């Protein structure tokens, strides 16, 4: 028994309950890139307070949790060029694809959305190829 698997499963269930609250409560799909992107590019229209409330919880709850359980390690890269490139790719890619790991992945797959499944296959393939190239060939991540 590996404890990190169990924590992954428990954390995953909490994420799924979060998505269920957002769907059954507000009638919305819990997609992080859509919620944040709508605030950034102004496409959120009337739903901006609701989006901001979601983002406030997403940022604030882990912040409060660190006071009780300490600060988890993020192992974020120290290479700023890599981080800027990664951030730009994630921002542009999720908005062009209209979804990320939460929207296409969790919310899409759970309703057997073909688009969600195809998106998930492509972002995992691309991520896997990047690991091969940038970790094993170039050694930068």
């Amino acid at each position: 028994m590996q404890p990190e698997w169990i924590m992954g499963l428990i954390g995953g269930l909490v994420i799924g309950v979060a998505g269920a609250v957002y769907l059954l409560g507000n009638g919305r799909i819990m997609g992080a890139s859509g919620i944040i992107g709508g605030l950034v590019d102004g496409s959120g229209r009337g739903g901006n307070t609701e989006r901001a409330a979601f983002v406030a919880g997403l940022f604030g709850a882990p912040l409060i949790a660190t006071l009780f359980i300490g600060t988890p390690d993020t192992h974020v890269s120290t290479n700023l060029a890599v981080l800027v490139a990664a951030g730009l790719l994630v921002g542009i890619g999720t908005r062009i694809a209209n979804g990320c790991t939460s929207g296409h992945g969790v919310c899409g797959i759970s309703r057997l959305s073909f688009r969600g499944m195809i998106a998930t296959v492509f972002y995992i393939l691309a991520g896997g190829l990047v690991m091969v190239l940038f970790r094993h060939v170039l050694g930068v991540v």
Partner: protein
Amino acid sequence: MRNLLAVVAGSLFGIGLMISGMTDTSRVQGWLDLFGQWDPTLAFVMGGAILPMMVAWRLTRRGRPLAGGTFPPPPLPEIDRKLVIGSVLFGAGWGLGGLCPGPAVASLSYGGVGGLTFLVAMLVGMWVAPPLRSRLDSAVPAE
């Protein structure tokens, strides 16, 4: 009511990401890295998250959302190149940085300068994306 539910959902999402280890970039990259020390955690997180969501989607077949309005329409069937190109770009960035949008915000308070750099770049990317998206739309040849 809507804002309260949004705070609750966002908070649960953040806590779930944090305790599952998904704000740790080495876990995400370890899962994507099939040829290194493969880390299976992400599959458990995905599986765990999909279970409650399957129940929730089933419950949307009748009634209305608690805070009013309507449930989302059925998923679109068509696969366009925005979906594929966007997902490939996203996946490349996800592998490079080990972060996707949810964890980037959730770990902002403890991710240091690196986490903040990623988040700012991601917001810039989201801000410049709409014209790129419409260009992909208009460049589609008639089929």
